[in-house]
């Protein structure tokens, strides 16, 4: 009765799609931009792949700057820009709302 892990991943994939679908349905229009920006930041979870790629064969000195790893490092930079930029900029946008709210 062994089940291929792929099937599990597929299940997880499909269930996540449902969650993605439902979770934003009721978003307030004024939050469209922050939401987009946070989604963008989250999508740079691709950095996980980048890290694995970059550190592949690490320890083996010769291979450290293998062409594959370089792509990984590049991907890390790109993703990092996105992560920091994305979350921070969202923070800034949301802070704006907060302030207004307090004023009154």
């Amino acid at each position, binding site marked *: 009765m062994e089940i291929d892990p*792929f099937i599990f*991943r597929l299940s*997880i994939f499909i269930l*996540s*799609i*449902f*969650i*993605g679908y439902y*979770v*934003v*349905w*009721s978003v*307030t*229009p*004024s*939050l*469209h*931009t922050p939401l*987009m*920006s*946070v*989604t*963008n*930041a*989250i*999508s*740079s*979870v*691709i*950095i*996980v*792949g*980048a890290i*694995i*790629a*970059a*550190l*592949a*064969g*690490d320890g083996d000195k010769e291979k450290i700057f*293998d*062409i594959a790893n370089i*792509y990984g490092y590049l*991907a*890390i930079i*790109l*993703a*990092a*820009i996105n*992560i*920091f*930029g994305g979350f*921070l*900029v969202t*923070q*800034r946008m949301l*802070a704006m*709302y907060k302030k*207004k*709210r307090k004023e009154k």
Partner: protein
Amino acid sequence: MSSNLLAVFYLISGVLFILALRGLSSPETSRRGNFFGIIGMTIAIFVTILSVGNFSTGFIYLLVFLLIGGSIGALIAFKIPMTAMPELVAGFHSLVGLAAVFVAISAFLNPTVFNLGIPGDIKIASLIEMSLGASIGAITFTGSIIAFLKLRGIMSGSPIIFLGQHYLNLVLGITLVSLIFYLCKTQIDTWFWTIILISFLVGVLLIIPIGGADMPVVISMLNSYSGWAAAGIGFTLENTALIITGALVGSSGAILSYIMCKGMNRSFFNVILGGWGATDDKTKSTSKEQKPVKNGNADDAAFLMKNASSVIIVPGYGMAVAQAQHALREMVDSLKKNGVKVTYAIHPVAGRMPGHMNVLLAEANVPYDEVFELEEINNDFANCDVAYVIGANDVTNPVAKTDPQSPIYGMPILDVEKSKSVLFVKRSLSPGYAGIDNDLFYRDNTLMLFADAKKMTEDIIKSL
């Protein structure tokens, strides 16, 4: 770190991302949402690093690059003016797309580390996933760049359409599919590179025919693409975090762009298929060069007013025509319950008969002490957050102060433009009694709410 523990942590970060998106859908929880996102990301990065294990040179480089990227990102985030948000998001997107391409390339070049087989003999499933990830990533990259350029104004916002565009796209699409097929069959790496190149081209072609006004939808759609790319690579790397997050971002991005289309009354299909609809009347009118107006909906108006500390209502003939006075009163009641100070500014010739507005407001039981005439209230606009101009037009037209040629020159007007934001409720851009255009419609702090005054006011009540 055991792979089981790793999987549990990835699950946790996935859940945190879900909570992040959830949080972002209402203003009260939005900051918490962002916080969840940050934690989720930190966990994901952290455990990945731990899982890779030995901390030698590569690890140092990793940290360095992470910091470089992070600093650049932080710098941009702090420096960018708030008005440039949409293009910023588009720009960031392109990076995610490119990162996905790089990771795919890396996996392709060095499949062993990822357990995908050896170069030249990569598992078919992995090859498919990998090339799909790379292709979508590439499309996201160039697509986002075009969107960025359009929003930034570097490229014209009007749709670029040429003959046979759709056929070209179709041909390219078929080519992509065949290339993936050949790649799987032959494992020749030229195909892989070609796929990426063609995908770059497709990204450009997909976005250029879309008009500037639709860019937010496009960005959200590209967002969704980048999610799918991540999910694809997640399958390749057998990485749950990537799968969950990718699917999450993919579907929520798609839904968000759908919601945005609905909000703007545009056909989702047309926007996404880029330019398909550009020949029908609706899109045509936006492709004409016009003075741009900011177009809002009831939710935007509700949000603005709910968060204002003072609102001035400026009723005009349109309120009378729409018989919106009762709805207006309801709306004001709701606002007052939210702690907003609301007053009414009555221009001496608003409407079509002396005292026209007074009759209607009295009918709706608006207390007299909230109703002010022009001279009493005109200075208050400078200190008010929102002026809600409902069916008035001429009485707010600043041309009366500036242009001696204008037929209304010399008439005192309500200085609504001095308030922080101005909401204009009217059905179109057409002029009022005096037949002259109102410059305020095109101002930066103006939001046009195109609808029947009663309908719009009722909608605002609903979203308050």
